[in-house]
């Protein structure tokens, strides 16, 4: 139930506007992130480069298909500085999902704004892990990261909420 409410807010943040729908070049975050969609293994970054050190957070997707765990490279979460995260996708039973098409977006529901940057999934690191670059928080408080996950011919959505100190 909680996820449903959050999702509604999330979808509104991503797409609600009094303005006319925007053209391709002006797409909202969710659509713009398509460039970063990983369709095949593009191991541009070695796993050894990843220095995840922030707290990890896990949520199960809305329809219960996937479990997403995210972790920031930095702890505490930095303010006003662009940085990277890693997402790990499994089924709720723990089976690795290593061929997902993943889109990331998010923002601050309370303040009705998205990220000040345009985060993208830039690499499939293997082992169900995916690189997220371009994350930036510009104020302390409650933030959310939203994921659209497509794998096993099915789509599902995950919202993960956390506080930026």
């Amino acid at each position, binding site marked *: 139930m909680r996820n449903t409410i959050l999702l509604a807010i999330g979808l509104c943040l991503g797409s609600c506007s009094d303005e006319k729908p925007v053209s391709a070049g002006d797409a909202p975050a969710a659509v713009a992130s398509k460039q970063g969609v990983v369709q095949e293994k593009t191991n541009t970054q070695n796993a050894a480069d990843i220095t995840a050190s922030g707290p990890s957070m896990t949520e199960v997707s809305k329809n219960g298909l996937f479990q997403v765990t995210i972790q920031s490279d930095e702890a505490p979460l930095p303010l006003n500085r*662009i940085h990277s995260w890693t997402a790990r996708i499994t089924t709720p039973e723990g089976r690795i999902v290593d061929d997902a098409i993943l889109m990331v977006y998010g923002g601050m529901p309370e303040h009705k704004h*998205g990220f000040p940057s345009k985060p993208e999934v830039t690499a499939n690191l293997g082992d169900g892990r995916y690189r997220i670059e371009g994350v930036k928080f510009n104020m302390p408080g409650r933030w959310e990261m939203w994921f659209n996950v497509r794998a096993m011919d099915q789509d599902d959505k995950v919202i993960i909420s956390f506080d930026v100190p």
Partner: protein
Amino acid sequence: MKISPLYHLLAGSLALLALSGFAVKATATETDKRVDSAWSDAEISMLRSLSLHSLTPLQADPSNAVADDPRAAALGQKLFFDTRLSANGEVSCASCHQPDRYFTDGLGQAQGIATTPRGAPTLLGASHSAWYFWDGRRDSQWAQALGPLESGPEHGGTRVEFARLIIEDPGYHAEYEALFGALPDLSDINRFPKRAGPSSDRKTIDAWHAMSEDDRQLVTRVFVNIGKSLAAYERLLMPGPGRFDAYVEALQEKNEAAMAEAMTRNEVAGLKLFIGKAMCIRCHNGPLFTDQGFHNIGVPFAEGLHLDWGRYQGVQKALKDEFNCLSDYSDAGHKDCAELRFAKTMKDETIGAFKAPTLRNVAETAPYMHSGQFADLDAVLDHYNKATTSRKAPIGHSDLVPINLATEELVQLKAFLHTLSGPPAVAPELLRAPSVEKDSRR
């Protein structure tokens, strides 16, 4: 270079510095010393995050190899005050970024050779930003510094003229070569016309395009290094603590007498509004009181100026900029350019948005907004207080929400803003032209 020890050193010795011209408001009056110090833990944590003591050391600028080289800063300081870097020999960077006005000029629209459409923001703390200009059309401080030099109404010069000045001035020549290696030979007036550059008027643009690609690069490389030297100097310009910072320090020490000494009751009430009901903290957060982001707050267009798309156009310009982080003139690698690579471009969230300025010294740097639309702080606060749920803005949608402050609260908020004033944490010798007796006409 580490800013933090420098900051502490300077902050500690500021009382000893006799910097005339900086108006810092007097401490609390005797009748007004009782302090409501009932802050929650969360509020205290928030206040600490706003204190200058929380300012993290200035990050390296990988796009500028000489960013923290003192020799580049010394050269940059000379260039900053040199009016020869202009078409009429009367305009320097310091014309609009005046050290005794907190590196602003007191004008709504900067005045160089002619009037520009936008105001000159302060340089104090500016190096902490990832984006420059009100619309963020440049992504480094050195690239920013190059903009006004070639802009017709600002310095009005051309890059061939600037490169020649470096070559022909013996002091600049030697300092440049020590930093960047041999200067090119531009003596052939047929290959290198007197005035030539990609901006400005038709004639200089045509002259620029008549030059060979290789020759254009020779000139542009010198021009870029002028910008990198200017940025090395500007990285040393930091705001100093105000009474607000003294208050937070006293609060942490639970020293009520020192708290009362630092801020009046009215100012403390204003601070409570600032981080609470008035929601200023949404965008004006961190020790520089800015999230360095772009926001549409529905500011009216300045008289006589056309529709301004703000960040929507600014980010497009930055992505195509010949001097951006990913360009050949940048010293950064691909991995260092995350701000540019992941810049938000969505029209809905960028149209009509302008950069949130620092509020450090805000009471000393009127007028306000990107084109000086508001003459004083009263007008600014009135604008915020008039916000409605309609989100109406001259272009796009305003991010503002109603705050419904009473007249008395507006007075308190304004009083608080005065506690953010303090002399720059900059060594006095950096606040003036370094070689008045020679080279410079100033």
